[in-house]
Protein backbone atom coordinates (compact mmCIF):
# COMPACT_ATOMS: atom_id res chain seq x y z
CA UNK A 1 0.00 0.00 0.00
CA UNK A 2 2.05 2.89 -1.28
CA UNK A 3 1.36 6.58 -0.85
CA UNK A 4 0.73 8.32 -4.15
CA UNK A 5 1.66 12.01 -3.85
CA UNK A 6 0.05 13.02 -7.15
CA UNK A 7 -3.25 11.50 -6.10
CA UNK A 8 -3.08 13.32 -2.76
CA UNK A 9 -2.37 16.57 -4.55
CA UNK A 10 -5.19 16.04 -7.07
CA UNK A 11 -7.74 15.35 -4.37
CA UNK A 12 -6.53 18.35 -2.38
CA UNK A 13 -6.80 20.53 -5.49
CA UNK A 14 -10.29 19.25 -6.12
CA UNK A 15 -11.37 20.28 -2.62
CA UNK A 16 -9.89 23.74 -3.18
CA UNK A 17 -11.69 24.23 -6.49
CA UNK A 18 -14.97 23.05 -5.06
CA UNK A 19 -14.48 25.25 -2.01
CA UNK A 20 -13.87 28.37 -4.05
CA UNK A 21 -16.92 27.63 -6.19
CA UNK A 22 -19.42 27.06 -3.43
CA UNK A 23 -19.83 30.33 -1.59
CA UNK A 24 -23.30 29.47 -0.46
CA UNK A 25 -21.95 26.45 1.39
CA UNK A 26 -19.23 28.50 3.07
CA UNK A 27 -21.69 31.14 4.20
CA UNK A 28 -24.04 28.39 5.35
CA UNK A 29 -21.48 26.79 7.65
CA UNK A 30 -19.95 30.03 8.89
CA UNK A 31 -23.21 31.76 9.74
CA UNK A 32 -23.80 29.92 13.03
CA UNK A 33 -20.39 30.54 14.59
CA UNK A 34 -20.57 34.09 13.30
CA UNK A 35 -23.92 34.69 15.03
CA UNK A 36 -22.59 33.24 18.26
CA UNK A 37 -19.46 35.36 18.03
CA UNK A 38 -21.24 38.62 17.27
CA UNK A 39 -24.29 38.31 19.52
CA UNK A 40 -22.66 36.65 22.48
CA UNK A 41 -19.51 38.74 22.06
CA UNK A 42 -21.33 42.07 22.03
CA UNK A 43 -24.24 40.92 24.15
CA UNK A 44 -22.12 39.94 27.13
CA UNK A 45 -19.52 42.64 26.64
CA UNK A 46 -18.26 43.76 30.02
CA UNK A 47 -20.66 41.45 31.87
CA UNK A 48 -19.37 39.61 34.92
CA UNK A 49 -19.53 35.92 34.15
CA UNK A 50 -18.51 33.63 37.01
CA UNK A 51 -15.77 31.17 36.19
CA UNK A 52 -14.29 33.09 33.29
CA UNK A 53 -11.33 33.66 35.61
CA UNK A 54 -8.06 35.01 34.33
CA UNK A 55 -9.42 35.58 30.85
CA UNK A 56 -11.39 38.45 32.46
CA UNK A 57 -13.11 39.79 29.40
CA UNK A 58 -15.76 37.44 28.01
CA UNK A 59 -14.64 38.02 24.42
CA UNK A 60 -11.21 36.63 25.29
CA UNK A 61 -12.96 33.58 26.66
CA UNK A 62 -15.35 33.28 23.76
CA UNK A 63 -13.14 33.62 20.65
CA UNK A 64 -11.14 30.37 21.08
CA UNK A 65 -14.46 28.63 21.66
CA UNK A 66 -15.98 30.05 18.48
CA UNK A 67 -12.91 29.02 16.51
CA UNK A 68 -13.32 25.53 17.92
CA UNK A 69 -16.99 25.59 16.94
CA UNK A 70 -16.09 26.64 13.38
CA UNK A 71 -13.49 23.89 13.15
CA UNK A 72 -15.74 21.10 14.38
CA UNK A 73 -18.59 21.88 12.00
CA UNK A 74 -16.50 22.53 8.88
CA UNK A 75 -14.33 19.48 9.56
CA UNK A 76 -17.10 16.98 10.25
CA UNK A 77 -18.94 18.18 7.14
CA UNK A 78 -15.75 17.76 5.15
CA UNK A 79 -15.28 14.19 6.37
CA UNK A 80 -18.92 13.43 5.65
CA UNK A 81 -18.62 14.78 2.10
CA UNK A 82 -17.62 11.25 1.09
CA UNK A 83 -21.35 10.60 1.35
CA UNK A 84 -22.04 13.17 -1.33
CA UNK A 85 -19.46 11.64 -3.59
CA UNK A 86 -21.12 8.30 -3.07
CA UNK A 87 -24.56 9.77 -3.75
CA UNK A 88 -23.45 11.52 -6.94
CA UNK A 89 -21.36 8.63 -8.16
CA UNK A 90 -17.98 10.32 -8.16
CA UNK A 91 -16.70 7.96 -5.48
CA UNK A 92 -16.73 5.11 -8.02
CA UNK A 93 -14.45 7.07 -10.33
CA UNK A 94 -11.98 7.52 -7.48
CA UNK A 95 -12.28 3.93 -6.31
CA UNK A 96 -11.51 2.47 -9.72
CA UNK A 97 -8.37 4.59 -10.16
CA UNK A 98 -5.04 2.79 -9.73
CA UNK A 99 -4.14 4.58 -6.50
CA UNK A 100 -4.24 3.29 -2.96
CA UNK A 101 -7.26 4.15 -0.87
CA UNK A 102 -5.00 5.55 1.81
CA UNK A 103 -3.73 8.18 -0.65
CA UNK A 104 -7.32 9.11 -1.37
CA UNK A 105 -8.12 9.42 2.32
CA UNK A 106 -5.02 11.53 2.95
CA UNK A 107 -5.83 13.81 0.02
CA UNK A 108 -9.33 14.37 1.37
CA UNK A 109 -8.06 15.03 4.87
CA UNK A 110 -5.52 17.60 3.68
CA UNK A 111 -8.12 19.25 1.49
CA UNK A 112 -10.59 19.36 4.35
CA UNK A 113 -7.99 20.73 6.75
CA UNK A 114 -7.10 23.53 4.36
CA UNK A 115 -10.67 24.66 3.78
CA UNK A 116 -11.51 24.28 7.44
CA UNK A 117 -8.50 26.39 8.49
CA UNK A 118 -9.32 29.09 5.97
CA UNK A 119 -12.79 29.38 7.45
CA UNK A 120 -11.50 29.41 11.01
CA UNK A 121 -9.03 32.16 10.09
CA UNK A 122 -11.89 34.19 8.58
CA UNK A 123 -13.72 33.97 11.90
CA UNK A 124 -10.50 34.83 13.70
CA UNK A 125 -10.04 37.97 11.59
CA UNK A 126 -13.58 39.08 12.40
CA UNK A 127 -12.82 38.51 16.08
CA UNK A 128 -9.73 40.71 15.77
CA UNK A 129 -12.00 43.40 14.37
CA UNK A 130 -14.22 43.04 17.46
CA UNK A 131 -11.34 43.81 19.77
CA UNK A 132 -9.78 40.38 20.34
CA UNK A 133 -6.04 40.65 20.94
CA UNK A 134 -3.30 38.04 20.82
CA UNK A 135 -0.05 38.23 22.78
CA UNK A 136 2.29 37.67 19.81
CA UNK A 137 2.54 36.47 16.27
CA UNK A 138 4.13 33.31 17.54
CA UNK A 139 1.01 32.47 19.52
CA UNK A 140 -1.00 32.77 16.31
CA UNK A 141 1.37 30.31 14.69
CA UNK A 142 0.91 27.89 17.58
CA UNK A 143 -2.83 28.37 17.35
CA UNK A 144 -2.73 27.39 13.68
CA UNK A 145 -1.00 24.18 14.66
CA UNK A 146 -3.65 23.41 17.28
CA UNK A 147 -6.38 24.30 14.79
CA UNK A 148 -4.91 21.88 12.25
CA UNK A 149 -4.95 19.09 14.85
CA UNK A 150 -8.55 19.79 15.85
CA UNK A 151 -9.57 19.88 12.21
CA UNK A 152 -7.81 16.61 11.33
CA UNK A 153 -9.44 14.96 14.34
CA UNK A 154 -12.97 15.85 13.33
CA UNK A 155 -12.43 15.11 9.63
CA UNK A 156 -11.39 11.64 10.75
CA UNK A 157 -14.56 11.46 12.83
CA UNK A 158 -16.56 12.58 9.78
CA UNK A 159 -14.99 9.79 7.72
CA UNK A 160 -15.96 7.27 10.38
CA UNK A 161 -19.55 8.56 10.40
CA UNK A 162 -19.58 8.47 6.59
CA UNK A 163 -18.74 4.78 6.55
CA UNK A 164 -21.38 4.04 9.20
CA UNK A 165 -24.14 6.09 7.59
CA UNK A 166 -23.70 4.94 3.97
CA UNK A 167 -26.21 7.47 2.61
CA UNK A 168 -26.93 11.15 3.09
CA UNK A 169 -30.19 10.61 4.99
CA UNK A 170 -28.43 10.64 8.34
CA UNK A 171 -26.55 13.84 7.65
CA UNK A 172 -28.98 16.15 9.45
CA UNK A 173 -28.99 13.89 12.47
CA UNK A 174 -25.22 14.08 12.74
CA UNK A 175 -25.37 17.84 12.55
CA UNK A 176 -28.04 18.15 15.23
CA UNK A 177 -27.09 15.31 17.54
CA UNK A 178 -23.34 15.39 17.37
CA UNK A 179 -21.99 18.82 16.51
CA UNK A 180 -24.17 21.05 18.69
CA UNK A 181 -23.94 18.93 21.85
CA UNK A 182 -20.18 18.64 21.41
CA UNK A 183 -19.92 22.41 21.06
CA UNK A 184 -22.00 23.08 24.18
CA UNK A 185 -20.21 20.41 26.21
CA UNK A 186 -16.79 21.69 25.21
CA UNK A 187 -17.08 24.88 27.23
CA UNK A 188 -16.68 26.91 24.06
CA UNK A 189 -19.36 29.39 25.10
CA UNK A 190 -19.34 29.36 28.91
CA UNK A 191 -17.11 28.09 31.71
CA UNK A 192 -17.50 24.39 32.39
CA UNK A 193 -17.22 25.05 36.12
CA UNK A 194 -20.77 26.41 35.99
CA UNK A 195 -22.16 23.05 34.83
CA UNK A 196 -23.50 20.46 37.29
CA UNK A 197 -20.89 17.86 38.20
CA UNK A 198 -22.43 15.11 36.04
CA UNK A 199 -22.39 17.21 32.86
CA UNK A 200 -18.88 18.36 33.66
CA UNK A 201 -17.72 14.75 33.69
CA UNK A 202 -19.44 14.17 30.35
CA UNK A 203 -17.62 17.18 28.95
CA UNK A 204 -14.31 15.52 29.76
CA UNK A 205 -15.24 12.89 27.15
CA UNK A 206 -15.70 15.58 24.50
CA UNK A 207 -12.53 15.89 22.41
CA UNK A 208 -13.46 19.46 21.52
CA UNK A 209 -13.13 20.41 25.24
CA UNK A 210 -9.38 19.87 25.02
CA UNK A 211 -9.14 21.51 21.62
CA UNK A 212 -10.84 24.69 22.82
CA UNK A 213 -8.75 24.61 26.00
CA UNK A 214 -5.54 24.29 24.00
CA UNK A 215 -6.58 27.20 21.80
CA UNK A 216 -7.23 29.28 24.92
CA UNK A 217 -3.83 28.36 26.25
CA UNK A 218 -2.00 29.55 23.12
CA UNK A 219 -4.22 32.50 22.20
CA UNK A 220 -5.11 33.95 25.59
CA UNK A 221 -2.43 32.40 27.76
CA UNK A 222 -4.83 30.73 30.16
CA UNK A 223 -6.76 27.51 30.41
CA UNK A 224 -8.79 25.74 33.07
CA UNK A 225 -7.65 22.13 32.74
CA UNK A 226 -3.95 21.18 33.00
CA UNK A 227 -2.10 22.37 29.87
CA UNK A 228 -0.31 19.07 29.33
CA UNK A 229 -3.61 17.19 29.35
CA UNK A 230 -5.15 19.59 26.83
CA UNK A 231 -2.26 19.37 24.43
CA UNK A 232 -1.90 15.64 24.83
CA UNK A 233 -5.59 14.99 24.13
CA UNK A 234 -5.60 17.42 21.20
CA UNK A 235 -2.64 15.58 19.74
CA UNK A 236 -3.98 12.08 20.38
CA UNK A 237 -7.51 12.62 19.04
CA UNK A 238 -6.60 13.12 15.34
CA UNK A 239 -4.20 10.20 15.43
CA UNK A 240 -7.01 7.88 16.53
CA UNK A 241 -9.78 9.19 14.27
CA UNK A 242 -7.65 9.64 11.16
CA UNK A 243 -6.36 6.11 11.53
CA UNK A 244 -9.83 4.67 12.04
CA UNK A 245 -11.39 6.87 9.37
CA UNK A 246 -8.80 5.83 6.80
CA UNK A 247 -9.20 2.21 7.88
CA UNK A 248 -12.98 2.26 7.38
CA UNK A 249 -12.58 4.06 4.07
CA UNK A 250 -10.11 1.43 2.93
CA UNK A 251 -12.53 -1.35 3.87
CA UNK A 252 -15.61 0.19 2.32
CA UNK A 253 -17.12 -1.34 -0.81
CA UNK A 254 -19.11 0.64 -3.28
Amino acid at each position, binding site marked *: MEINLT*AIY*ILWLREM*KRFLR*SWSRIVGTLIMPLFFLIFLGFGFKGAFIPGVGHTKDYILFLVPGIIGMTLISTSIISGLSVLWDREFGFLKEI*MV*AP*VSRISIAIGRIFGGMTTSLIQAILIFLIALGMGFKIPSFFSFFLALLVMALISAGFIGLGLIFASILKDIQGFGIIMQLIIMPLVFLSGALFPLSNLPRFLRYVSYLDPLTYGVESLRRVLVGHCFLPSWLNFFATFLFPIITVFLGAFFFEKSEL
Partner: protein
Amino acid sequence: MSAIQVEKLKKEFNGLIAVNEITFEVKEGELFGLLGPNGAGKTTTLNMLATLIKPTSGQAFVAGFDILKERDKVRKSIGMVFQEPALDNYLTGRENLEFHGMMYGLSRKEAKERVREALKIVELEEFADKLVQTYSGGMKRRLEIARALVHQPKILFLDEPTLGLDAQTRRKIWEYIKKLNKEKGVTIILTTHYMEEADFLADRVAIIDYGKIVALDTPENLKNILGGDVISIEVDNHQNAKKAFEKLPWVKKINQENGIFYLQVEKGEEKIPLLIRIDQEEAGFQIKSINLRKPTLEDVFLHFTGRTIREREASQTERFRERAKIHMR
Protein backbone atom coordinates in the same frame (compact mmCIF):
# COMPACT_ATOMS: atom_id res chain seq x y z
CA MET B 1 -3.78 -13.61 -26.14
CA SER B 2 -7.27 -12.95 -24.91
CA ALA B 3 -8.09 -9.54 -23.46
CA ILE B 4 -10.34 -10.92 -20.78
CA GLN B 5 -10.54 -14.42 -19.47
CA VAL B 6 -13.18 -15.38 -16.97
CA GLU B 7 -13.31 -18.76 -15.25
CA LYS B 8 -16.20 -19.86 -13.07
CA LEU B 9 -16.62 -16.39 -11.62
CA LYS B 10 -19.21 -16.25 -8.87
CA LYS B 11 -20.59 -13.54 -6.61
CA GLU B 12 -22.98 -13.96 -3.74
CA PHE B 13 -24.62 -11.14 -1.80
CA ASN B 14 -25.97 -12.42 1.50
CA GLY B 15 -26.93 -15.78 0.08
CA LEU B 16 -28.34 -14.36 -3.17
CA ILE B 17 -26.33 -15.52 -6.14
CA ALA B 18 -25.86 -12.55 -8.45
CA VAL B 19 -23.33 -14.16 -10.75
CA ASN B 20 -23.28 -17.92 -10.96
CA GLU B 21 -19.96 -19.40 -12.06
CA ILE B 22 -19.75 -17.80 -15.47
CA THR B 23 -16.98 -18.55 -17.90
CA PHE B 24 -16.19 -16.62 -21.04
CA GLU B 25 -13.40 -15.03 -22.99
CA VAL B 26 -13.06 -11.74 -24.81
CA LYS B 27 -10.55 -11.61 -27.64
CA GLU B 28 -8.22 -8.72 -28.19
CA GLY B 29 -9.84 -6.01 -30.30
CA GLU B 30 -13.27 -7.52 -29.89
CA LEU B 31 -16.47 -5.65 -29.08
CA PHE B 32 -18.17 -7.96 -26.63
CA GLY B 33 -21.70 -7.55 -25.33
CA LEU B 34 -23.29 -8.84 -22.14
CA LEU B 35 -27.01 -8.83 -22.81
CA GLY B 36 -29.64 -9.45 -20.20
CA PRO B 37 -32.40 -7.92 -18.09
CA ASN B 38 -31.75 -5.71 -15.08
CA GLY B 39 -30.58 -7.76 -12.15
CA ALA B 40 -29.17 -10.53 -14.35
CA GLY B 41 -25.67 -9.94 -12.97
CA LYS B 42 -24.12 -7.89 -15.77
CA THR B 43 -23.00 -4.95 -13.67
CA THR B 44 -21.80 -7.21 -10.90
CA THR B 45 -19.67 -9.08 -13.44
CA LEU B 46 -18.22 -5.83 -14.74
CA ASN B 47 -17.52 -4.54 -11.24
CA MET B 48 -15.67 -7.73 -10.39
CA LEU B 49 -13.57 -7.48 -13.54
CA ALA B 50 -12.84 -3.82 -12.73
CA THR B 51 -11.66 -4.93 -9.23
CA LEU B 52 -14.33 -2.86 -7.52
CA ILE B 53 -15.82 -5.85 -5.76
CA LYS B 54 -14.26 -9.17 -4.90
CA PRO B 55 -15.68 -12.36 -6.37
CA THR B 56 -16.92 -15.04 -3.99
CA SER B 57 -15.06 -17.65 -6.02
CA GLY B 58 -13.53 -18.25 -9.42
CA GLN B 59 -10.91 -16.24 -11.20
CA ALA B 60 -10.46 -13.81 -14.03
CA PHE B 61 -7.67 -12.15 -15.96
CA VAL B 62 -7.94 -8.73 -17.51
CA ALA B 63 -5.21 -7.74 -19.98
CA GLY B 64 -3.36 -10.74 -18.63
CA PHE B 65 -3.48 -9.56 -15.01
CA ASP B 66 -5.16 -11.39 -12.18
CA ILE B 67 -8.10 -9.34 -10.87
CA LEU B 68 -7.39 -10.50 -7.34
CA LYS B 69 -3.63 -10.32 -7.15
CA GLU B 70 -2.78 -7.50 -9.54
CA ARG B 71 -5.51 -4.97 -8.90
CA ASP B 72 -3.54 -1.83 -9.75
CA LYS B 73 -2.27 -3.30 -13.02
CA VAL B 74 -5.80 -4.25 -13.99
CA ARG B 75 -7.02 -0.76 -13.10
CA LYS B 76 -4.33 0.86 -15.21
CA SER B 77 -5.25 -1.26 -18.24
CA ILE B 78 -8.96 -0.51 -18.20
CA GLY B 79 -11.21 2.47 -18.70
CA MET B 80 -14.60 2.32 -17.09
CA VAL B 81 -17.87 4.07 -17.82
CA PHE B 82 -20.38 3.44 -15.07
CA GLN B 83 -24.10 2.99 -15.44
CA GLU B 84 -24.79 6.18 -13.52
CA PRO B 85 -22.77 9.36 -13.95
CA ALA B 86 -19.59 9.39 -11.89
CA LEU B 87 -18.53 12.98 -12.47
CA ASP B 88 -17.77 15.88 -10.18
CA ASN B 89 -20.47 18.43 -10.96
CA TYR B 90 -18.52 21.29 -9.42
CA LEU B 91 -15.62 20.82 -11.80
CA THR B 92 -15.54 21.64 -15.48
CA GLY B 93 -15.49 18.88 -18.07
CA ARG B 94 -11.82 19.54 -18.74
CA GLU B 95 -10.92 19.49 -15.06
CA ASN B 96 -12.70 16.18 -14.56
CA LEU B 97 -10.64 14.69 -17.36
CA GLU B 98 -7.31 16.23 -16.40
CA PHE B 99 -7.67 15.09 -12.80
CA HIS B 100 -8.43 11.63 -14.11
CA GLY B 101 -5.33 11.63 -16.31
CA MET B 102 -3.09 12.62 -13.44
CA MET B 103 -4.64 10.01 -11.16
CA TYR B 104 -3.56 7.49 -13.76
CA GLY B 105 0.01 8.70 -13.65
CA LEU B 106 0.18 11.12 -16.58
CA SER B 107 2.17 14.31 -16.23
CA ARG B 108 0.19 17.55 -16.31
CA LYS B 109 1.39 18.23 -19.85
CA GLU B 110 0.55 14.75 -21.11
CA ALA B 111 -2.82 14.92 -19.40
CA LYS B 112 -3.68 18.22 -21.06
CA GLU B 113 -2.74 16.87 -24.47
CA ARG B 114 -4.65 13.62 -24.12
CA VAL B 115 -7.68 15.40 -22.70
CA ARG B 116 -7.77 17.63 -25.76
CA GLU B 117 -7.76 14.56 -28.01
CA ALA B 118 -10.38 12.74 -25.98
CA LEU B 119 -12.69 15.76 -25.94
CA LYS B 120 -12.35 15.98 -29.69
CA ILE B 121 -13.44 12.39 -30.20
CA VAL B 122 -16.70 12.98 -28.36
CA GLU B 123 -17.10 16.50 -29.78
CA LEU B 124 -17.24 18.30 -26.46
CA GLU B 125 -14.39 20.81 -26.96
CA GLU B 126 -16.85 23.66 -27.02
CA PHE B 127 -18.25 22.88 -23.59
CA ALA B 128 -15.03 21.70 -21.98
CA ASP B 129 -14.68 24.69 -19.67
CA LYS B 130 -18.24 24.72 -18.41
CA LEU B 131 -19.17 23.16 -15.08
CA VAL B 132 -20.43 19.61 -15.49
CA GLN B 133 -23.62 20.48 -13.62
CA THR B 134 -24.71 22.43 -16.71
CA TYR B 135 -24.33 19.37 -18.98
CA SER B 136 -27.22 17.34 -20.35
CA GLY B 137 -27.43 13.60 -19.74
CA GLY B 138 -26.02 12.79 -23.17
CA MET B 139 -23.13 15.22 -22.73
CA LYS B 140 -22.27 13.69 -19.38
CA ARG B 141 -22.18 10.24 -20.93
CA ARG B 142 -19.94 11.47 -23.74
CA LEU B 143 -17.67 13.16 -21.24
CA GLU B 144 -17.40 9.92 -19.31
CA ILE B 145 -16.48 7.99 -22.42
CA ALA B 146 -13.84 10.62 -23.15
CA ARG B 147 -12.56 10.34 -19.60
CA ALA B 148 -12.24 6.59 -19.86
CA LEU B 149 -9.99 7.15 -22.90
CA VAL B 150 -7.61 9.69 -21.38
CA HIS B 151 -5.16 7.14 -20.02
CA GLN B 152 -5.40 5.15 -23.26
CA PRO B 153 -6.58 1.87 -21.81
CA LYS B 154 -6.36 -1.34 -23.77
CA ILE B 155 -9.80 -2.38 -22.62
CA LEU B 156 -12.90 -0.27 -22.19
CA PHE B 157 -15.74 -1.28 -19.85
CA LEU B 158 -19.09 0.26 -20.67
CA ASP B 159 -21.95 -0.39 -18.27
CA GLU B 160 -25.24 0.36 -20.04
CA PRO B 161 -23.64 3.15 -22.07
CA THR B 162 -26.91 4.51 -23.49
CA LEU B 163 -29.27 3.95 -20.57
CA GLY B 164 -31.80 6.74 -20.33
CA LEU B 165 -30.64 8.58 -23.43
CA ASP B 166 -32.86 9.68 -26.30
CA ALA B 167 -32.70 7.85 -29.63
CA GLN B 168 -30.58 10.47 -31.36
CA THR B 169 -27.97 10.63 -28.64
CA ARG B 170 -27.92 6.87 -28.49
CA ARG B 171 -27.03 6.68 -32.19
CA LYS B 172 -24.23 9.16 -31.64
CA ILE B 173 -22.81 7.18 -28.74
CA TRP B 174 -22.99 4.01 -30.80
CA GLU B 175 -20.94 5.71 -33.47
CA TYR B 176 -18.25 6.71 -30.96
CA ILE B 177 -18.13 3.20 -29.58
CA LYS B 178 -17.80 1.63 -33.03
CA LYS B 179 -15.16 4.15 -34.00
CA LEU B 180 -13.10 3.47 -30.90
CA ASN B 181 -13.25 -0.22 -31.49
CA LYS B 182 -12.58 -0.24 -35.21
CA GLU B 183 -10.18 2.70 -35.58
CA LYS B 184 -8.30 2.71 -32.30
CA GLY B 185 -8.44 -1.01 -31.76
CA VAL B 186 -9.72 -0.73 -28.20
CA THR B 187 -11.20 -3.93 -26.84
CA ILE B 188 -14.65 -3.15 -25.52
CA ILE B 189 -16.92 -5.07 -23.19
CA LEU B 190 -20.33 -3.56 -22.72
CA THR B 191 -23.46 -4.50 -20.85
CA THR B 192 -26.89 -3.66 -22.11
CA HIS B 193 -30.49 -4.67 -21.89
CA TYR B 194 -31.25 -3.11 -25.26
CA MET B 195 -31.45 -5.80 -27.92
CA GLU B 196 -30.77 -3.41 -30.81
CA GLU B 197 -27.69 -2.14 -29.03
CA ALA B 198 -26.14 -5.56 -28.63
CA ASP B 199 -27.14 -6.49 -32.15
CA PHE B 200 -25.76 -3.33 -33.72
CA LEU B 201 -22.53 -3.05 -31.76
CA ALA B 202 -21.29 -6.38 -30.54
CA ASP B 203 -19.09 -8.82 -32.43
CA ARG B 204 -20.20 -11.46 -29.99
CA VAL B 205 -22.99 -11.46 -27.45
CA ALA B 206 -23.34 -13.38 -24.21
CA ILE B 207 -26.95 -13.63 -23.12
CA ILE B 208 -27.08 -13.64 -19.36
CA ASP B 209 -30.03 -14.47 -17.18
CA TYR B 210 -30.19 -15.09 -13.44
CA GLY B 211 -26.41 -14.86 -13.22
CA LYS B 212 -25.82 -17.53 -15.87
CA ILE B 213 -24.73 -17.27 -19.48
CA VAL B 214 -27.44 -19.05 -21.46
CA ALA B 215 -26.01 -18.44 -24.94
CA LEU B 216 -22.86 -16.96 -26.42
CA ASP B 217 -22.16 -16.32 -30.09
CA THR B 218 -22.23 -13.68 -32.81
CA PRO B 219 -25.64 -11.97 -33.15
CA GLU B 220 -25.95 -13.60 -36.60
CA ASN B 221 -25.41 -17.11 -35.34
CA LEU B 222 -27.64 -16.58 -32.33
CA LYS B 223 -30.48 -15.51 -34.56
CA ASN B 224 -29.86 -18.42 -36.91
CA ILE B 225 -30.41 -20.82 -34.02
CA LEU B 226 -34.07 -19.91 -34.34
CA GLY B 227 -34.12 -21.30 -37.86
CA GLY B 228 -34.03 -18.14 -39.89
CA ASP B 229 -36.63 -15.61 -40.92
CA VAL B 230 -40.38 -15.89 -40.68
CA ILE B 231 -42.67 -14.95 -43.55
CA SER B 232 -46.27 -14.52 -42.48
CA ILE B 233 -48.71 -14.86 -45.34
CA GLU B 234 -52.43 -14.37 -45.47
CA VAL B 235 -54.44 -16.21 -48.13
CA ASP B 236 -58.08 -16.80 -49.03
CA ASN B 237 -58.03 -20.58 -49.54
CA HIS B 238 -56.08 -22.23 -46.75
CA GLN B 239 -56.17 -25.79 -47.98
CA ASN B 240 -54.93 -25.06 -51.46
CA ALA B 241 -52.30 -22.69 -50.13
CA LYS B 242 -51.03 -25.26 -47.69
CA LYS B 243 -50.59 -27.79 -50.44
CA ALA B 244 -48.68 -25.28 -52.52
CA PHE B 245 -46.39 -24.25 -49.62
CA GLU B 246 -45.63 -27.85 -48.77
CA LYS B 247 -44.21 -28.31 -52.23
CA LEU B 248 -41.64 -25.55 -51.78
CA PRO B 249 -38.26 -27.12 -50.95
CA TRP B 250 -36.88 -24.05 -49.13
CA VAL B 251 -39.67 -23.80 -46.56
CA LYS B 252 -38.34 -25.38 -43.39
CA LYS B 253 -41.44 -25.28 -41.31
CA ILE B 254 -45.05 -24.24 -41.68
CA ASN B 255 -47.16 -22.97 -38.82
CA GLN B 256 -50.74 -21.90 -39.12
CA GLU B 257 -52.41 -19.63 -36.63
CA ASN B 258 -55.60 -17.55 -36.90
CA GLY B 259 -55.73 -18.17 -40.61
CA ILE B 260 -52.21 -16.89 -41.21
CA PHE B 261 -49.35 -19.06 -42.34
CA TYR B 262 -45.94 -18.63 -40.81
CA LEU B 263 -43.19 -19.98 -43.04
CA GLN B 264 -39.76 -20.49 -41.60
CA VAL B 265 -37.16 -19.73 -44.28
CA GLU B 266 -33.63 -18.48 -44.70
CA LYS B 267 -32.97 -15.11 -46.32
CA GLY B 268 -36.63 -14.19 -46.32
CA GLU B 269 -36.22 -11.12 -48.50
CA GLU B 270 -35.19 -13.37 -51.43
CA LYS B 271 -38.10 -15.75 -50.87
CA ILE B 272 -40.89 -13.22 -51.11
CA PRO B 273 -40.54 -12.82 -54.90
CA LEU B 274 -40.59 -16.60 -55.25
CA LEU B 275 -43.83 -16.80 -53.30
CA ILE B 276 -45.43 -14.17 -55.47
CA ARG B 277 -44.33 -16.03 -58.58
CA ILE B 278 -46.36 -19.11 -57.66
CA ASP B 279 -49.13 -19.48 -60.20
CA GLN B 280 -52.01 -18.63 -57.96
CA GLU B 281 -54.68 -19.39 -60.61
CA GLU B 282 -53.43 -22.93 -60.96
CA ALA B 283 -52.84 -23.54 -57.24
CA GLY B 284 -56.27 -22.19 -56.44
CA PHE B 285 -55.62 -19.50 -53.81
CA GLN B 286 -54.90 -15.83 -53.62
CA ILE B 287 -52.34 -14.02 -51.49
CA LYS B 288 -53.86 -11.19 -49.48
CA SER B 289 -50.77 -9.96 -47.67
CA ILE B 290 -47.16 -10.89 -47.03
CA ASN B 291 -44.98 -9.86 -44.14
CA LEU B 292 -41.37 -10.64 -43.44
CA ARG B 293 -39.98 -10.73 -39.94
CA LYS B 294 -36.31 -11.20 -39.19
CA PRO B 295 -35.64 -12.67 -35.77
CA THR B 296 -34.16 -10.26 -33.22
CA LEU B 297 -32.08 -11.02 -30.19
CA GLU B 298 -35.33 -10.57 -28.29
CA ASP B 299 -36.55 -13.77 -29.97
CA VAL B 300 -33.28 -15.43 -29.06
CA PHE B 301 -33.71 -14.38 -25.46
CA LEU B 302 -37.26 -15.70 -25.53
CA HIS B 303 -36.05 -18.95 -27.02
CA PHE B 304 -33.46 -19.53 -24.31
CA THR B 305 -35.30 -18.25 -21.25
CA GLY B 306 -38.94 -18.77 -22.17
CA ARG B 307 -39.75 -15.11 -21.58
CA THR B 308 -39.08 -11.77 -23.18
CA ILE B 309 -36.61 -9.42 -21.54
CA ARG B 310 -39.39 -7.01 -20.66
CA GLU B 311 -41.39 -9.64 -18.83
CA ARG B 312 -38.28 -10.78 -17.04
CA GLU B 313 -37.51 -7.26 -15.94
CA ALA B 314 -40.97 -6.68 -14.57
CA SER B 315 -40.72 -9.76 -12.39
CA GLN B 316 -37.17 -9.05 -11.40
CA THR B 317 -37.41 -5.39 -10.50
CA GLU B 318 -38.57 -6.11 -6.98
CA ARG B 319 -35.98 -8.78 -6.38
CA PHE B 320 -33.33 -6.51 -7.77
CA ARG B 321 -34.32 -3.60 -5.55
CA GLU B 322 -34.14 -5.80 -2.50
CA ARG B 323 -30.71 -6.99 -3.52
CA ALA B 324 -29.53 -3.45 -4.18
CA LYS B 325 -30.70 -2.39 -0.75
CA ILE B 326 -28.88 -5.21 0.95
CA HIS B 327 -25.84 -4.46 -1.14
CA MET B 328 -25.78 -0.84 -0.05
CA ARG B 329 -25.78 -1.61 3.68
